[in-house]
């Protein structure tokens, strides 16, 4: 059941986008986010759509798979679109009971929906095409300048990658304990809120114990391999920009410039 969450799970196929340096993809996501917030007319959104769907096509991740990942944020999407639809003052189109739909509201709600959809699609595309390890590597490298102000970038990145690495393990563990308790007649589905919360105890206690056990095992294993933090630590696979990345950066610079131009000129 928990395995069905598609939002952000790496999608293992071979594609030019998968092969890009994680820093390039991080920058690209940032560019998309900024561009989506700068965009305020249909042409800008057209450019963003072209950009996004271009990358999706190149990434070989099926569009259906990405759209499926939108499900968890559907509520937020409908909610914010509805707010914009009903609460924007302007030229009245429809009026019933206490609700008024204005022309401006309609346009803004539409744009909001598109903006949020593109945002989620863009960011999930990042995690679909980048393994968690690459992602933290990229973040660590891109944020290294923060070391100057004594932010422990390496340690934070390490914590992040361990946390990410543990998600599937804990999901699997949860699944296992849940099944073991179900085999003993536990019922996680029926009953009211309090009964359901109580039913979680046989699941949560073993889960916490196993998480702590794993954490201490991991700490021991890391110490046994002389882990001592980021200082002087080298990488087995250092990040390196290739021609494809340089090309990608050109596109990534051209795209926001285009959006800004479209906004200013039209």
């Amino acid at each position, binding site marked *: 059941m928990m*395995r069905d969450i598609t939002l952000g799970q790496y*999608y*293992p*196929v071979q594609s030019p986008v998968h092969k890009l340096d994680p820093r390039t993809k991080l920058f690209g996501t940032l560019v998309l986010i900024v561009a989506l917030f700068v965009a305020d007319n249909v042409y800008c959104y057209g450019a963003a759509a072209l950009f996004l769907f271009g990358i999706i096509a190149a990434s070989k991740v099926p569009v259906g798979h990405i759209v499926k990942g939108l499900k968890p944020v559907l509520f937020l999407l409908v909610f914010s679109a509805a707010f914009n639809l009903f609460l924007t003052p302007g030229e009245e189109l429809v009026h019933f009971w206490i609700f008024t739909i204005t022309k401006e509201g309609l346009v803004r709600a539409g744009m909001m929906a598109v903006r949020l959809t593109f945002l989620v699609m863009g960011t999930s595309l990042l995690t679909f095409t980048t393994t968690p390890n690459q992602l933290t590597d990229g973040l660590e490298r891109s944020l290294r300048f923060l070391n100057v102000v004594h932010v422990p970038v390496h340690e934070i990145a390490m914590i992040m990658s361990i946390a990410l690495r543990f998600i599937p393990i804990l999901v699997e563990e949860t699944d*296992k*304990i849940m*099944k*073991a*308790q*179900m*085999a*003993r*007649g*536990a*019922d996680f589905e029926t009953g009211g809120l309090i009964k359901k919360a109580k039913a979680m*105890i*046989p699941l949560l*206690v*073993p889960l916490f*114990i*196993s998480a702590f056990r794993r954490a201490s095992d991991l700490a021991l294993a890391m110490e046994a391999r002389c882990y001592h933090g980021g200082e002087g630590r080298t990488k087995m696979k250092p990040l390196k920009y290739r021609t494809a990345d340089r090309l990608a950066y050109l596109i990534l610079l051209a795209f926001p410039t285009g959006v800004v131009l479209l906004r200013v000129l039209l």
Partner: protein
Amino acid sequence: MITLRQVEYKYQEGTPMETEALHKVSLEIRDGEFIGLIGHTGSGKSTLIQHLNGLVRATGGDILYNGESIYREGFSMKELRSRVGLVFQYPEHQLFEVDVFTDVCFGPKNQGLSKEEIEKRAREALSLVGIGENYYKKSPFELSGGEKRRVAIAGVLAMEPEVLILDEPTAGLDPRGRDEILGQLARLHRERGMTVILVSHSMEDVAKYVDRIMVMNHGCLVFDDTPRVVFGHYKELEEMGLAAPQVTYIAHALAEAGFPVRTDVITVEEAEEAILCTLNMDGVGRMEKADGEGR
């Protein structure tokens, strides 16, 4: 009785990660059998046993419990799970209560029994696995690994299932803990007529206790017969990353070296008997006699 008809199971159907865990498995588990289920890691054993009490739903085929499909509308999975007890691998990881006794009560409590009945069953189950009253009020987390394992098994036994399935109940235990658990299982089977399915990697254990072996390989059921017949296919078993008991190899080696011994032995006792029989037969018995006098 549990009947499997052409059961198939696919992980993550319809994604690029799709893998077939079970391929058209058909079998019948009759009441009162002691069955060994073997296969290398990833052969589908664990997936198969989780089908037997409805924890995993087959993506194809049908499963019947006493002739009734468990996928029929309105079939009570809870009822099925209290009749088909499943002890997972490392079952001690599922302990959660404040003390041993309360933890064992969890299963029967979920069955909706009366307080007296729950406690009676918990007591019985704990004594079956050899956990004394002085342990009842201890925290399960204070116990040794073998004791924890036995408490966890008692937690399933307390539900008084008709069929008991154990996924590698002896993994990670020392030889004494292993013999204790297997001995208790054999007793349960003998005295109560409980149907037991034992998943194991130890061919010696399987050969010693069970009267039927099922072998899984790449999601298919490849052998389903008595231990003697199955271990006779030891060459095929090796190709699957399995083996026959060590004494079977010794018997084969002896036979190849020209010593006329029976080669279908599977336990140490049988091997001893077969070798002694051969020795007595061709007059080498004198040696044994001389050996006996020397002692």
